[in-house]
Structure formats: structure tokens, C-alpha cells
């Protein structure tokens, strides 16, 4: 056997082995997801959220919404937050040094005045320029903080310092929440008796092409454009399968920065959001878990499969690339900061399962895939077409499509948000197209993200959004 053949076999069987382990993970994720979702749906059928909505015993919640240059949409977005169903609520908008007229618009629309406000600086942040309250009692729940620009993590830390509630919910100000989103998110904190729930997340769905009126979702539609449609499928897969499965194992590492609730005391005790990473959402959850593991206290990160938050997905490759580049850098930074936990049995599931999974199948997967495909193309051109390797590739692609179809099936069996048959057909088509028009670009963006991190490029990457105005019902 020549050395070229040896390398080829090593390469081919290496990829095959990796794929088999990945397949096993997919099977386990699918199984655990079915178990957890079934259990949740059964439990949820006994829950009357109206009890919590009207109860004075409901725990207080603070919504933290950082805003940067959100001028054109901020008034509507804040109005939408103020109308959420929850008894003990405060809404804190953090203007992170916007260069536009966001603050002026808020002052005018909500009759704000600069108040003397004592900020308990438990987390270090950039200076606060002023805290504003409304002179109109209708908006007594609202607090607007104006601060120097310091990024999303820094803005959230300011919010954590100002919040007075035991729990806070961080959201992207341009997201649309379901009216009962907070009630549903509060429940895990209230029902656990044996473990302390340190954080809870809910499903984020894609709002492109949906009908939004007055900051409320009126009608769910499948995105008309291909890229957002594929992301719809991707989100269903990630939230309904992956996160539910990790919740079953109590190994969830990520709660979306777009929408998640946290135990304020634990967040403060472990130092708040890290402003030095672009993946502050994942980093915080990992740090909170690590803190609880080191403390030796029983804890849980909860996740509920109800669609609670709707967000606009990138509709161009340029913006999508920036987003995925940032996600990759955030993942690597988080894994690097907590490398102590890698296969460390003293961190339990977190060290032995969650962290290694993220390392091998979230961080390494795009790199292996990228170099695998490049290697295969090179070999085919230089020597001959290796049908065995091609067959493995086809198998992996088919497996990906199968996994996506399973995710669609789970969606149909559970929440069935897309009622029309043609929507389901379009989702299946998206599943078939994804490996060819979407996935290679995501892999490429992740590889670029790795290079950018090596070159110490830590920019956030501008996320231009079209806004929901265009989707409003005529």
C-alpha cells in the first residue's frame, strides 16, 4: 500500500468514523427530544397561566433590552414590551451610546425625565449618563438608561445593576414576544423544588414575512425568501430537537441572547456578562453552570419548546456571513475560557458531555467538513475519483436531510405553526436545498470566523435589519 493510499484510507475512514459518531449523537438527540417534548406537553396541559398573570405572588421580573441605533423602530418596540401580560414587571431599556436620535424619541414619546437614581454598581460597567423615568403614571414600569457605548454585554450588565427583581429577562429590543411569553418563562423558576433553576430559555422563531401589527404577531407565515426560510428550518432543528434533548440531560449550554430569563443573584455572583467576548449569551450560561458546579449546589437550566419570541433573520449572504462568523468566534472564545472543564469529571455532564460535544461537533465540525471537502476535491483532480469517499459524502448529506425532515415532523406533531400544506412542502424543499445553497456558506463563514479570531478581529459585525414594518398587514 502506497503512502498516498494509506493517507486516503485514513482520511476516508476518519471521516466515516466521525460521521458514525455524529449519527449516534443525532439519534440520541432525536430520542431525548421526543421524550422531553412529550413530557413538557403533558405537563403544560395542566397549566393555567392566567393564575400567574393575575397573582400578586408572581415573582417580579425585569426585562433588559439593550438598544443601539434603533431609532426608527424603538417606540413601537418599547410599546410592545410594555403591553406584555405580567403582573410584577419593569422594563429597562439601555441606550448603549446610540449615535442616532433613539433617546430623544423615547423622551418625547414616553414623557421621560432625568431622575436621580442610585445605581448599585455590583457589576463593573461603562459610565451611565442618566437614568430616565416617565412622568406619565401609565408608563411607571419603564426605566430608560443612557450610557456610554460599551457593547451588548456591557449594556446588559448595566441593566442587571439597575434591575430590582429576582429574575431578569434579556431580549433583543427588535424581537416580538408572544403576549404570554413571560408567564411561560417564569414557570420553570416556580415549579422546581429540588434544584435551583438558574436560567430558562424559550424557542426563538423567524418572523420574516409574518404579519406584525403594533408590535404584536398577528399571523405566522413561512418566509417568502429562501435564506430566511432555510433559517426557519435551522431554528426548528436547533430549538425543537437539540435544545430539548440537552434539557433532558440537564446539559444545555446556550440560551439565546435574543430571549432568556436568568436568576439575577447567580448572574451577579459569577460576574455578569463578559464584555470581552462576542458570544456573551453562551459564555454567561457556561459560567453560571460552572459556578454552580463548583459550589456543589443542585441546579438546572430550563428550556421550554413553546414559540415565545420572533426575530428577523438575515436575508442576504453578506449579513448572514457576519452573523455566523460572530457565532463561531463566540463559541471558540467560550470554549477557550472554560477549557478546564474539558473531559473533567468534577464538572459532571457539563465537563464530560456538553463541553466535549460543543468542542467536537460545533467548533470542529465546520473545520473537518471544510478540509474534508477540499481534500476530496484535490484527490479527485490529482489521482482519480474516490467513489467510496463520495458515497460517504452523499450519505452524510442524506442524513442531514433526514434529520431536517424529522425536525419538520416534530414541528407538525407539536406546535404546527405553519398550517398550510404548501408551507410544509416548502420546508421539505428547503431541507433538500440546504446542503447545497446554505450549509456550504455557513461552513465557510465559520472557517473565516476561526481565521478572524486568530487575527484578533473581535468586531460584532453590523446586523442590518429590514424591520417588520414591511410585513405589516395592509
Amino acid at each position, binding site marked *: *500500500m502506497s503512502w498516498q493510499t494509506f493517507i486516503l484510507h485514513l482520511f476516508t475512514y476518519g471521516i*466515516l468514523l466521525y460521521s458514525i459518531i455524529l449519527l449516534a449523537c443525532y439519534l440520541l438527540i432525536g430520542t431525548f427530544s421526543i421524550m422531553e417534548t412529550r413530557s413538557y406537553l*403533558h*405537563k403544560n*396541559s*395542566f397549566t*393555567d397561566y392566567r*393564575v*400567574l398573570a*393575575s*397573582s400578586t*405572588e*408572581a*415573582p417580579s421580573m425585569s426585562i433588559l433590552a439593550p438598544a443601539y441605533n434603533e431609532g426608527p423602530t424603538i417606540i413601537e418596540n418599547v410599546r410592545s414590551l410594555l403591553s406584555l401580560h405580567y403582573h410584577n414587571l419593569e422594563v429597562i431599556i439601555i441606550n448603549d451610546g446610540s449615535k442616532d436620535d433613539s433617546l430623544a424619541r423615547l423622551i418625547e414619546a414616553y414623557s421621560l425625565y432625568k*431622575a*436621580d*437614581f*442610585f445605581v*448599585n*454598581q*455590583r457589576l463593573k460597567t461603562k459610565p451611565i449618563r442618566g437614568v430616565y*423615568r416617565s412622568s406619565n403614571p401609565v408608563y411607571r414600569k419603564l426605566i430608560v438608561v443612557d450610557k456610554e457605548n460599551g457593547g451588548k454585554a456591557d449594556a446588559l450588565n448595566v441593566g442587571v445593576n439597575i434591575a430590582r427583581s429576582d429574575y431578569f429577562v434579556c431580549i433583543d429590543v427588535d424581537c416580538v414576544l408572544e403576549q404570554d411569553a413571560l408567564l411561560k418563562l417564569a*414557570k420553570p*423558576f*416556580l*415549579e*422546581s*423544588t*429540588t434544584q435551583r433553576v438558574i436560567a430558562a430559555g424559550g424557542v426563538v422563531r423567524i418572523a420574516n414575512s409574518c404579519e406584525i401589527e403594533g408590535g404584536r404577531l398577528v399571523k405566522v407565515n413561512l418566509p417568502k425568501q429562501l435564506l430566511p426560510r432555510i433559517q426557519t428550518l435551522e431554528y426548528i432543528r436547533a430549538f425543537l430537537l437539540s435544545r430539548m434533548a440537552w434539557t433532558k440531560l440537564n446539559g444545555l449550554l446556550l440560551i439565546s441572547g435574543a430571549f432568556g430569563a436568568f436568576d439575577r*443573584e447567580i448572574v451577579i455572583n459569577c460576574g455578569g456578562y463578559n464584555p470581552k467576548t462576542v458570544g456573551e449569551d453562551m459564555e454567561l450560561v457556561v459560567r453560571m453552570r460552572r459556578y454552580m458546579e463548583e459550589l456543589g449546589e443542585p441546579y438546572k437550566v430550563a428550556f421550554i419548546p413553546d414559540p415565545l419570541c420572533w426575530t428577523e433573520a438575515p436575508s442576504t449572504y453578506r449579513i448572514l456571513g457576519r452573523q455566523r462568523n460572530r457565532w463561531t468566534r463566540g463559541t471558540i472564545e467560550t470554549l477557550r475560557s472554560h477549557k478546564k472543564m474539558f473531559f473533567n469529571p468534577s464538572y459532571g455532564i457539563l465537563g464530560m458531555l456538553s463541553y466535549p460535544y460543543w468542542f467536537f461537533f460545533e467548533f470542529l465540525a465546520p473545520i473537518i467538513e471544510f478540509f474534508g471537502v477540499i481534500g476530496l476535491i484535490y484527490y479527485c483532480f490529482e489521482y482519480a475519483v474516490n467513489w*467510496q469517499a463520495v*458515497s*460517504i459524502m*452523499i*450519505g452524510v448529506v*442524506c*442524513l442531514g*436531510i*433526514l434529520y431536517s*425532515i*424529522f425536525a*419538520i*415532523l416534530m414541528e*407538525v*406533531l407539536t406546535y404546527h405553526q405553519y398550517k398550510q*400544506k404548501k408551507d*410544509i412542502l416548502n420546508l*421539505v424543499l428547503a431541507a433538500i436545498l440546504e446542503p447545497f445553497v446554505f450549509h456550504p456558506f455557513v461552513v465557510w463563514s465559520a472557517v473565516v470566523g476561526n481565521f478572524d479570531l486568530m487575527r484578533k478581529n473581535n468586531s460584532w459585525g453590523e446586523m442590518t435589519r429590514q424591520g417588520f414594518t414591511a410585513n405589516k398587514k395592509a
Partner: protein
Amino acid sequence: MKGRSLIHLLSISWQIQNIAVAAVVILMICLLTFMLAYMLSQSLQEKKKQKWRMISDMLINKAIFFEERDEIEDQILASVLEAAKKLTGNKQFRKFITGELISAKKNISGTSSDSLKQFYLQLGLEQYALKNLESRQWYVKAQAIQELTIMDTDEFIDQLQAFTDDKNEYVRMEAQAAMVQFKGFEGLDFLDVITYPLSNWQQIKLLQLLSARPPSNIGIDKWFNSENPTVVIFALKLARNYHRFELHDAIASCLDHEDPDVRLEAIRCLNEIYTDETSDHLIGHFLREGLRNQVAMAKVMQTVGTKRDELFLFDLLTYDSDELKLHAARALVNASEDGWTSLERLSNRSEDAIARILMHIKAEKAA
């Protein structure tokens, strides 16, 4: 030989790969077919429900407009009930009609509500629910308890009582709610025996159910000695919500409880039920507590603090926690008329934080 066996091995693995790819494709087709079949069956089910809805609508209408019933109407009702009873053998129909009656029952009260209960019993649906109480699946059991509770079938109260300390939290939650629904405050006697914790969610639900009942002077204090800390917490909430001032000393004695969550609830309770001695109790226990409970105590001092507590409150201003300082400053301002002046004097010669806290309180007062 070695080369030939390697080739043979490779050829086998090549075949396995092809079989695996084919299997994945077949599985994909199966999933798609299942999805299609499921969607078709759902739409067929929906059509069937449209027909059944005529029956349920008629029953609910007859229940609501019971006063307008005459002999002919009664005959129609009897035939509808007869037709519905025949269909109860169908599990789907049973589920449907029960769901409809339950959702109507939740929104109707008085005689109409009693009529719905009668229809439920005439259709024999309670027999199915009683059978479901023996199910091995917790959600079937819990659903049966919920159904019997909403339909006001208090004749089965003894059967339901047995589930109040069930090992499944949802089964016992429904059974406990049933007891309160049927017997009001008297129904809380399950608190004497439960060994499992009462979640905050369940406590909120029970308090909500009790709020629909006239206040009662049942003996709450026996639960302050419960070995189940969540029962003590719930009892403290009851005392607070129903302003049971006579229990002040018993509540204050909970400040010695070994569970910090119980002590926290006792502190909160003292904010509502207090006497001239409450601040002494709080001050006496202050140093034994962690920061969370100390902050809660400082908050309560805003309500119960008096001029004689000034020394203690000024001492709190020297602590590291700014949150403690803020509450202590508020308490000082509330405690006496010259509290404000003393604070201003202190702010002129002490750290910046006190001055900022003072401005904050000033703004609060002005708002």
C-alpha cells in the same frame, strides 16, 4: 493474501455504505409518508369534530337556556343525550365531548353549571374518569382528577383525597387543588400529611383558589411546626394574605427556623403582620442571616422601624452592600422626622454613595 483480504474488507465496507445510504433514503420516504398520513388524519378528524360539535353545542345551549325548555325541547334533549351516549364508546368522541363540557363549565356558574354536571353524569363520563384514576400513566390520572374537579363531582372526594401525597407532582397538585376546590380552607388538611414539597407554582395556584372563598379562621399555626419546610412557607403566606395578626409571635418564632427560605418568608410576612416588637425580633436575628435575608430585613425595617431603631439603621449604612445601605436609608427617613436631617448631615461627611442614595430617595419622594 493480506492484500486480498484487505480488498475483500474494503469491498464489504463499500457495500455497507451503499446499504446505509439506501436505508437513510428509505427512512426519509417513510418519515414523509408518515407526516402526510398524519396531516390527512388530522384533517379527517377535524371534519368528524365538526359533526360532533353540533351535539356539544346543543347540550351547552340547553344548559345555558335551561329556563326556556318545554316538553318538546326536553324530548329533543333526551334524544341528543341518547345519541351522544352511544358515541361515548368512541375514545376520540369521549375526549372531545369532555373537553367541550369542561371548557363550558369553566365559564358558566349557577344552575347552568349544574345542568352541565348532570349531562356529564348522564353520559356516564365520570365512570371513564374514575377508571382513568387507576391508570399507570401519570398524565391520564392527573387529567381524570382535573376533570372530576372541574365537573364538581364532589361525591368522589374520598377517592381524590388519596392522591394528595402521590409521588407524581402533577397528580398530587391536581388532587390538592381538588380538595381546596371542593372544601375550601377545610380542604387544606392535606398539609398535615404531605411529605413532598409544595412548589411555588402550586402555592400560587392554591392561594388563587382560596381567594374565591370567604376568609376563614382555620388554625394555620399548626403548620408552622411542619417538618415540610414548604408547608411552613405556605402557612406563612396564608397568614400574610389573610392578615392573621394574632399569629405575630408564631411568625416571629419562624425566624429561628433552620431553613433560610422559611426565614425569608417569615421576614416578608412580618412586613404585613407587625407589632411594636417586630423590629426587635428582626434586629435580634440580623447578624445570623446571609446577605439575601439581611436585605429583606432592611426592607421590612422601612415599615416597622421606629426612632429607637436609628442606631441599628445607622450601623447598616457602614456595611459594604449598597443595597443594604439604600434600604437602611429609606428606613431611617421613614422611622423619624429628623431621620432625613441626620442622613443629610452624614452624607456631607461620608462617602459618595450615601449622598447618591439620599438623592435617589429624594427623587422617589418627589415622584
